[in-house]
């Protein structure tokens, strides 16, 4: 297969990636209900084509980054992905949609810097990996939905919406400027609203369900983050006059190299991070994600793996060079706090999807914290996003398969012993649980190990309170992850059936669902293998993702030729004097991280088995929770954050709303009513004038005619003799007149 880049054709292929499912969406939304099988095959086929293109393009990108491209020298090959697409912007698609607005620029130098604002595609190391992940996961979710959503009364709408959801994510990844990223970001927010609220209306009882509240909550909570993101990138636009990622990276790093980080950089960076906090469900805006479980399970899989929450982390990857070290400290602290805090809640939840929801929040915390530590952490965080997408999608679909098999029972306390009834689901879920717990040879191990290693390196190279906190919190959270994930597995699949009725009716899911599960479990197992990059099992220590983004800790200071070509990062490993020093720190951290992550994962799994499978008395969950009852209650109630939000922000906005309502009803309505009343008075006066004078005049004319008529009628007697008399009298009068005058 030809794996070299050809600008014209490859450009069109990439453009087709979002356009194919978009066509599917348009067909589905208008014609879906009339098609056979309600049109699910239309969008699923479209997604299959998209998946094939994304994987093919990914193979090309990887080939290039490994030096297999047709550009010759090794250095050139490293940058090939990006430089090619810079060219292709001019070749294929460059639309000047907005002209300069020089008055908003602060200085003439910046005005000169400012390019025409164009739209194009950005396809680099990060984008290629993410695009392939979204393509693959989305296709299997579509496939899974064909089985899971069967019999739903809004089946065709579901497929249309989930297709547009994917389109938004694919376009977001391909956007080469932050404004278009934001537009697709918003489209995705809308689609998540529609999909979470898919069951908002019960067709049988005609009642509004919890899903309606859940989708509203998701939409409004992420909206706070979206506002922050808008403010953040508009601050950058105000100062640098561009939305393009390349320009933003270059201008920021040049500016910072010359003048240092300025106050507005910190503010704008925090606002940009606010977008991630909302979308990727970081503390304190994580509250929407557990509620989003009200949506259909395939939607949860999409939100938690390929789209929505991944977009927030992806955004961090895109804007990383623009974040100051101070902002990155906040990023690390937020991520670490989220990771540990969601993991503790995850241990107490009994809803099978709820456990997965909190595990997603926790894993997102890992990613965000890792990106905050910079350098290797950036790579590790983004890599974890990729591996997490596979195994979390598989976990959700497995949970969906369990729920489907148990006739929509979600409480783990009623399950148990399902492994014989649902063998395929069990194996897939076990594989992915081992991956998320961080067992060696499973994808999650590689990314999580790198994250732990990166926090250790950060503690060595640029220690701060945030990195110290992350260094403690992340291994602990990893241990808790292993614990609560095996708690889920044991409660669901092992032991004796707790509810005989549910167990008797449980069955393995239909073929499309198990195919999707198996494929994703396969990727969850092998998605992270380092040797995939070069097929050399022992020779390289770099994962394929590191190769793709051009990160090589062994050969020098951290550079990201595959992500930020030609950019000298101003926020990463600034204190490091030489490449050798960095390599040494990295190697030291590598070994201790390996031991640490293996220990914590093993401990977590061991404790889970002792507590739930072997029922060791010392580890009895009941005894433990009763010893720390107040803490347990707090965690069980999710730290009362929902209550806190209800009591403060929602109550506050309700009060504000009531004040405005009062203002509206009293002042505004008062003014309107007064105007109305005045009008009525004026109208009464006008009516009186009309009735009296105008009508009077008209009536007077009528009355006069009437009077004359009545008078003249008196001589119209009809008697001929009278007429003759009048005629004679008239004649005599005329004669008399003539004679006298």
């Amino acid at each position, binding site marked *: 297969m030809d794996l070299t880049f050809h600008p014209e054709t490859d450009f069109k292929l990439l453009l087709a990636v979002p356009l194919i499912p978009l066509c599917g969406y348009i067909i589905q939304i208008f014609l879906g209900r009339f098609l056979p099988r309600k049109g699910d095959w239309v969008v699923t086929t479209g997604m299959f084509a998209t998946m094939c293109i994304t994987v093919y393009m990914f193979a090309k990108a990887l080939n290039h980054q490994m030096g297999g491209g047709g550009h010759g020298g090794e250095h050139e090959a490293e940058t090939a992905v990006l430089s090619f697409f810079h060219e292709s912007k001019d070749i294929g698609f460059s639309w000047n949609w907005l002209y300069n607005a020089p008055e908003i620029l602060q200085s003439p130098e910046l005005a000169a810097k400012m390019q025409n604002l164009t739209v194009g595609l950005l396809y680099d190391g990060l984008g290629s990996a993410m695009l392939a992940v979204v393509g693959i996961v989305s296709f299997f979710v579509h496939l899974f939905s064909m089985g899971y959503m069967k019999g739903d009364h809004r089946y065709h709408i579901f497929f249309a919406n989930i297709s547009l959801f994917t389109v938004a994510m694919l376009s977001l990844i391909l956007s080469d400027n932050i404004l278009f990223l934001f537009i697709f970001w918003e489209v995705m927010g809308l689609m998540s609203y529609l999909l979470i609220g898919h069951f908002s209306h019960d067709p049988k009882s005609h009642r509004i369900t919890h899903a309606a509240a859940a989708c509203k909550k998701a939409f409004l909570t992420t909206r706070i983050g979206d506002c922050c993101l808008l403010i953040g990138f508009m601050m950058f636009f105000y100062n640098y006059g561009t939305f393009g990622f390349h320009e933003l990276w270059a201008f920021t790093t040049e500016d910072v190299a010359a003048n240092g980080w300025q106050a507005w950089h910190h503010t704008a960076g925090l606002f940009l991070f606010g977008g991630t906090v909302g979308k990727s469900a970081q503390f304190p805006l994580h509250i929407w994600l557990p509620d989003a479980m009200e949506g259909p399970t395939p939607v949860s899989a999409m939100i938690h793996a390929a789209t929505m929450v991944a977009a927030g982390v992806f955004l961090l990857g895109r804007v990383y060079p623009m974040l100051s070290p101070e902002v990155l400290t906040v990023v690390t602290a937020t991520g670490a706090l989220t990771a540990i805090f969601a993991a503790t809640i995850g241990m107490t939840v009994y809803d099978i999807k709820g456990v997965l929801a909190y595990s997603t929040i926790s894993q997102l915390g890992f990613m965000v914290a890792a990106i905050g530590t910079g350098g290797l952490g950036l790579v590790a965080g983004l890599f974890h996003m990729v591996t997490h997408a596979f195994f979390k999608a598989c976990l959700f679909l497995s949970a969906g398969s369990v729920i489907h098999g148990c006739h929509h029972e979600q409480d783990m306390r009623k399950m148990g012993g399902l492994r014989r009834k649902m063998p395929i689901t069990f194996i897939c879920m076990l594989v992915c649980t081992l991956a998320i717990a961080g067992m060696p040879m499973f994808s999650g191990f590689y990314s999580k190990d790198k994250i732990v290693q990166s926090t250790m390196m950060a503690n060595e190279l640029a220690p701060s309170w945030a990195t110290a906190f992350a260094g403690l919190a992340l291994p602990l959270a990893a241990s808790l992850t292993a614990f609560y994930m095996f708690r889920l597995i044991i409660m669901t699949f092992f032991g004796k059936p707790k509810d005989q009725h549910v167990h008797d009716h449980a069955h393995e899911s239909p073929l499309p669902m198990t195919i999707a599960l198996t494929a994703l479990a396969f990727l969850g197992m092998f998605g992270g293998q380092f040797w995939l990059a070069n097929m050399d099992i022992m020779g390289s220590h770099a994962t394929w993702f590191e190769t793709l983004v051009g990160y090589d800790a062994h050969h020098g200071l951290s550079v990201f030729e595959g992500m930020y070509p030609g950019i000298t990062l101003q926020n990463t490993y600034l204190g490091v004097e030489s490449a050798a020093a960095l390599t040494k720190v990295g190697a030291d951290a590598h070994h201790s991280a390996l031991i640490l992550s293996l220990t914590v994962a093993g401990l977590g799994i061991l404790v889970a088995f002792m507590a739930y499978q072997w029922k060791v008395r010392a580890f009895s969950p009941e005894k433990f929770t009763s010893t720390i009852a107040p803490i347990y209650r707090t965690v069980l109630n999710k730290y009362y954050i929902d209550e806190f939000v209800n009591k403060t922000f929602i109550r506050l906005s309700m009060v504000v709303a009531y004040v405005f309502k009062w203002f509206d009803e009293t002042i505004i309505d008062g003014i309107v009513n007064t105007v109305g009343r005045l009008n009525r008075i004026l109208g009464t006066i006008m009516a009186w004038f009309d009735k009296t004078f105008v009508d009077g005049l008209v009536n007077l004319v009528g009355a006069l005619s009437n009077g004359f008529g009545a008078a003249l009628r008196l001589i*119209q*007697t*009809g*008697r*001929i*003799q009278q007429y*003759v*008399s009048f005629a*004679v009298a008239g004649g005599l009068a005329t004669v008399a007149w003539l004679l006298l005058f």
Partner: protein
Amino acid sequence: MGLGAYIAVSAILFTLGLVTIAARRNILYVLFGIEMILNAANINFVAFNRFNGDGMDGRMFAIFVIILAAAEAAVALAIVLNVYQLFSTTKPSDVDLLRE
């Protein structure tokens, strides 16, 4: 006898005719009144022709008037007959359909 005597007779006859038309209670008398007025005009025609003219013009007009009067009387009598059938009366004061 001079012209004045003729005119005087004619004027008296005209006045009597007029009064007959205006005052009599029977519609036939009204017709008689009309005839009297026409004959007053005839006397004038003939008298003026005798004293002032030198041809036969006045006398010819008188003959025309007599013929017209005859025709008019025929029409008028037919009308009277109809009026009587409609109203069952010959009193002109009761016939006031013209008022409508």
